[in-house]
């Protein structure tokens, strides 16, 4: 049942502010949610951790035991909130933060754009403007004279207690930062930005962030060289393994260039590819070799890892990683960095880092998609589209499409490697797309019961879009390919679309990147590169 939650009651002592049930969710075609229930949380966990927002936990926040602990949470939050609005601490996003904090007109236009809000059965707490409005009202209440004096008459009616702080922390991790809401706001207010600002406050002041993103993410990244924990030695082993894989797939060994000084391009993959989808870097190697691209990988710690989880939650961690990646390219003396099929890595390094790369850090950085288009159109490689004679739909990763405007190159590639009639756009394709549900860290956050929330709420809209795109070919006897040129989106496809919604078993839909499809269509590759039976 839809639960009405007033902003001023956000800190109420209810066990769970908005308990979710399956019957609230917007059902997919043919989905019967009436008998389903979310897995109950074990009593010992209830005692220990805070689930009081919606019954889920992304952050493992331990419930405070004493009034002193409760007060410390509130005080630390207030200290962080003040810093968020000071240029010394937040110059990098101060102007957007201040503007989005001051000028929301409470018109709700953003609500209908949000896949989480829609999927949840329109629960108040998931409105894009709900968490932003909490931030505003708390800020006004504690940091503006009008708010202190006039309370609700100055839009300042949220009183802090530890529950407000913890619920708000959890709530900042219920938005995938897809910015679909921002693109509909008549004023230009950016609720995703504010969700990220909240995450920053929690991380940079209070040390609160999901373990997968922080401890085993950016911290691990800096210690081992990769967020996957892959050391240099393991990376080099993986490259050998990929060379074996290529030989097995195409009957010919290709030497993948590593640490080639002075190469034209340093190619930077999300290291998750090496572990989970080695076909992807293998396909890049096959294509670049065939097209005669002068490139190299770096084996330097942080130089072989393209991810930058800092993009999602922490400016300091973000900047450390981005500049270490550029440093690796500098050390190799390459002309430019090309980022592989990973959305947040591309946006993080190409767009957001742009104004951080001052002085000799200004090495050009770009997405792989235009290069793949150039390779395809150049005629350097011969393709036989009939080798890809199955229906394909294309997911638009938010980071590359809505946030960078890269829309055409991937479609131009598909035009050349698919037979006519096999490509179908999803509804809302392009800059109006929906997040895969794995955005902003969700794809890697697998602790506690968070995956259940993610699969059911964040990925639900994507599942609906995929079904819509394939609606005339859902028959499982027809194999279908969901093309997601982004590592995180593939992670979400694997966990949500394939495992949770069962698209592989029910409809014979598999997922993969763009380069795999390209290699699959290469005339020089004797056997199918994409095999429906195995790894997907």
């Amino acid at each position: 049942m839809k639960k009405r939650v007033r902003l001023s009651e956000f800190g109420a002592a209810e066990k769970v502010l908005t308990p979710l049930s399956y019957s609230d969710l917007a059902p997919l075609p043919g989905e019967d949610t009436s008998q389903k229930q979310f897995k109950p949380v074990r009593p010992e966990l209830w005692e220990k951790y805070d689930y009081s927002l919606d019954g889920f936990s992304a952050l493992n926040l331990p419930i405070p035991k004493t009034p002193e602990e409760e007060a410390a949470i509130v005080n630390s939050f207030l200290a962080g909130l003040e810093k968020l609005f000071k240029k010394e601490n937040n110059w990098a996003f101060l102007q957007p933060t201040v503007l989005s904090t001051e000028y929301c007109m409470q018109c709700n236009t953003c609500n209908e754009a949000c896949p989480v809000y829609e999927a949840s059965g329109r629960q108040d707490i998931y409105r894009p403007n709900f968490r932003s409005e909490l931030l505003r009202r708390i800020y006004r209440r504690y940091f503006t004279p009008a708010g202190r004096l006039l309370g609700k008459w100055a839009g300042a009616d949220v009183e802090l207690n530890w529950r407000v702080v913890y619920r708000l922390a959890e709530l900042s991790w219920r938005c995938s930062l897809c910015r679909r809401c921002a693109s509909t706001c008549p004023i230009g207010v950016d609720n995703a930005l504010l969700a990220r600002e909240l995450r920053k406050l929690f991380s940079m002041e209070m040390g609160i962030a999901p373990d997968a993103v922080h401890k085993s993410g950016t911290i691990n990244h800096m210690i081992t060289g990769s967020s996957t924990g892959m050391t240099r030695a393991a990376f080099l082993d993986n490259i050998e393994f990929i060379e074996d894989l290529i030989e097995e797939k195409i009957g010919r060994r290709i030497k993948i260039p590593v640490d080639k000084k002075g190469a034209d391009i340093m190619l930077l993959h999300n290291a998750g590819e090496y572990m989970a989808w080695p076909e992807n870097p293998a396909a890049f190697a096959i294509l670049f070799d065939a097209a005669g691209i002068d490139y190299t990988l770096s084996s330097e710690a942080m130089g072989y890892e393209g991810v930058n989880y800092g993009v999602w939650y922490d400016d300091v961690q973000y900047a450390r990683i981005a500049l270490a990646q550029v440093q690796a390219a500098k050390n190799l003396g390459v002309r430019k960095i090309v980022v592989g099929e990973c959305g947040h890595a591309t946006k993080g390094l190409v767009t957001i880092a742009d104004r951080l790369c001052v002085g000799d850090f200004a090495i050009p950085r770009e997405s792989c998609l235009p290069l793949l288009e150039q390779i395809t159109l150049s005629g350097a490689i011969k393709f036989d589209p009939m080798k890809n004679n199955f229906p394909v739909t294309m997911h638009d990763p938010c980071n590359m499409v809505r946030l960078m405007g890269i829309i055409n190159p991937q479609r131009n590639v598909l035009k050349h490697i698919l037979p006519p009639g096999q490509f179908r756009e999803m509804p809302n394709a392009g800059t109006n797309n929906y997040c895969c549900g794995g955005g902003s860290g969700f794809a890697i956050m697998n602790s506690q019961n968070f995956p259940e929330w993610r699969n059911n709420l964040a990925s639900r809209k994507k599942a609906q879009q995929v079904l819509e795109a394939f609606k005339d070919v859902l028959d499982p006897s027809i194999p279908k390919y969901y093309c997601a040129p982004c590592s995180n989106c593939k992670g979400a496809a694997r966990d949500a679309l394939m495992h949770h919604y069962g698209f592989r078993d029910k409809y014979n839909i598999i997922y993969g990147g763009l380069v795999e499809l390209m290699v699959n269509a290469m005339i020089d590759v004797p056997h199918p590169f994409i095999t429906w039976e195995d790894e997907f």
Partner: protein
Amino acid sequence: MNSLEGFVTGPMVYLAIAVFTVVTAYKVHAIMNMPRHLRWDLYPVPHQGPEGSKYQKVDFYKLPKQFSLTHELKEMGEEIFFIKRAFLNNRKIWRGSYLLHLGFYIGTAWLALLVAGAVMEIAGVRVSAAGGLASLIYYLTIAAGVASFVFGLAGTLWLFHLRVHDEEMQAVSDAVSYMNLGLMLLLFGTGFAAWLFADPTFALLRAQVAGLLTFTAVPVQDSLIAWQMFWFSVFLLYLPFSRMMHFAAKYFFYHNIMWDDEPLKAGSDMEKDITGYLSYSVEWSARHIKHRGNWAEQVASRPEREVDKK
């Protein structure tokens, strides 16, 4: 004329105009002088034109700057004059919002016409239906005034209705939203009432404006005129302190954030500014932040304390 009416139709109006101008200028100046932020583009960016994002090209950084003024103006025009995003994404609110904005746009034109008429009167040209430019001003003022009040009132009432009766709107509306609408109701309502009951040709108001322009007290013929001027002044005094300042802030949302695709160039002012920001000392206190390090030091450091903990 009692002294209160004298204050409302004289000093209070000057004060309101002065406060509005100074505070608006101050706020705009403050926004403009905030540090440059990191890129946070949102596509499509209209000035990139039909070609779309440069990021779609190999070696995009070598390409000349894209700037299609036509596409940018078209998008701005659609947003300013039709409130396009609300129209496309929220028709319900758009109906009220559009009428209300029309009320303000036409109301601004009406004020300009009143001032023009007053200047003519000061110069000895009588603004009446008698013909010539003066009669054009005469009729346009009436038409603009009435249209502004009617549209403004209709829009405000519709938005009030939504905030009171639509459950979803109710859920997000704070006291300030109602207060702002209340103020607009008084602004347009007193204007409408004064026109209807006291000043059908706006001659009385024009005389007040002429008085204001020449710093001469003009007797108030009807207290509705004083009320109208009072609520106008209150509105002006409140406007720059309120979220309704979005009329100015919106420019920065679009041009300085969503559509700001200016790349960093070597030796540019932007580079100098950002290099300067890197010396700001960081106060964040989580374990992975280098204690009291500036941004340059933060970036060069690794989270030692977190590493120790592992």
